[in-house]
């Protein structure tokens, strides 16, 4: 979808949410769902920061790390990509206490989701670094740069532009994954929806509203990443040299 179509869709979604939230049938749900949405946003933001840090660390270690750290990175990536996000959340929340480590639901949620998406992100980072043309590395050798200089000044800035679109998809995945935290008792959007569903039985109204709120959040993320992509294409990276 183009930028303009996304913007139109986002406006329509927001307008619909606004319209529905004024109707008698929906109004009572607004405060509760707003609280839930706030929790969803908090978890999304914190987990996104963790995911990006974990992805860059693990991605670069897998490529250039010394042997033991490289294995650690590979193990992290495989375990978190290979098991289910929900299993990881349950493990952090229910199993870790059995080993004497008890963490709050919120912490478990941020760590679980952040590390889960970070493992996928590590492959994105790795792929983007590898995709930088070999000639760029060769030029840094010919200019006698160190590997660290080459990576920091030449390779990563170019890889960054290639990373933005896949990161856009990953952030959407992250946002969607936060719905799972309702299953470890955190009061996010999905949790509030179930709660109110049980007490009011106005199922259709509640879930329609919740779907629209998630849609608005996703569209905002997508739109933001598209704008970032365009900026990177224009400002930082003028179409690659031959």
């Amino acid at each position, binding site marked *: 979808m183009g930028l303009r179509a996304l913007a139109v869709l986002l406006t329509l979604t927001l307008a619909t949410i606004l319209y529905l939230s004024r109707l008698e049938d929906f109004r009572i749900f607004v405060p509760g769902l707003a609280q839930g949405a706030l929790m969803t946003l908090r978890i999304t933001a914190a987990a996104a920061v963790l995911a990006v840090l974990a992805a860059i660390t693990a991605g670069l270690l897998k490529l250039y790390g010394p042997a033991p750290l490289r294995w650690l990175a590979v193990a992290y990536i495989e375990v978190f990509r290979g098991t289910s996000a*929900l*299993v990881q959340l349950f493990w952090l929340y229910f199993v870790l206490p059995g080993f004497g480590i008890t963490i709050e639901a919120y912490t478990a949620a941020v760590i679980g989701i952040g590390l889960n998406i970070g493992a996928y992100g590590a492959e994105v980072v790795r792929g983007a670094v590898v995709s930088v043309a070999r000639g760029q590395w060769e030029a840094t050798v010919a200019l006698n740069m160190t590997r660290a200089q080459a990576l920091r000044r030449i390779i990563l800035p170019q890889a960054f532009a290639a990373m933005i679109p896949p990161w856009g998809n990953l952030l959407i995945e992250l946002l969607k994954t936060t719905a799972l935290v309702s299953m470890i008792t955190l009061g996010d959007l999905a949790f509030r929806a179930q709660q109110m569903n049980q007490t009011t039985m106005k199922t259709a109204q509640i879930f329609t509203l919740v779907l629209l709120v998630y849609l608005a959040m996703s569209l905002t993320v997508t739109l933001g990443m598209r704008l970032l992509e365009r900026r990177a294409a224009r400002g930082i990276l003028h179409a690659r040299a031959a």
Partner: protein
Amino acid sequence: MWDWAFTLEILPALARAAVITVEVTILGFLIALTLGLALAVCRIALPWTRLPISLLVELIRSTPLLIQIFFLYFVGPSFGLTLDAMTTGVLAVGVHYATYCSEVYRAGFESVPRGQWEASVALNLGRATTLRDVIIPQAIPPVVPALGNYLVALFKETPLLSAIAVLELMQTAKIIGSQTFRYTEPITLVGLFFLAMSLVSAWAIRRVEAGINRRYRR
């Protein structure tokens, strides 16, 4: 910390649940494959469906599968659509991943050179025939690995069905945990099962990919 006797005790129950997980995966993915192809073909064959389909795809891909499962399960009945939990789960993951698969197919169609359509026109083949006999056979093989990745992704999302009490692996592990107050073994075992299956599938997909690259080298 880890009780082997307990592990052995719960293994049969988990094995039975694993069968359900695999069933859900296979049935859900069959829906995803066929519905996804139907969506992709519709977009090509019937231009007016493009906008509604891309809206639908955007809507489904932008919202959590968990909410979609709830929607189908709780809201369905008020529209006269009453399904049992298992059917709801299969349908929800199937439709959710159909949107991902349709994008994969679309990329496959776009990778077929325009000249193939033009040659088919030159041979006076009909649109349907062209699609069936010329385009689809070329579009699908290159995207098989991408479809395989979504099979694995779908498989890893089946634990969500525990939210509507489908007796798959996660739900069974949760029940064992709440009855015995021991979560360590059941949840770790579920994790290991997913890890093992994912690693095996990743290896299988790489093999298939290598095979396809050999046959359809471009």
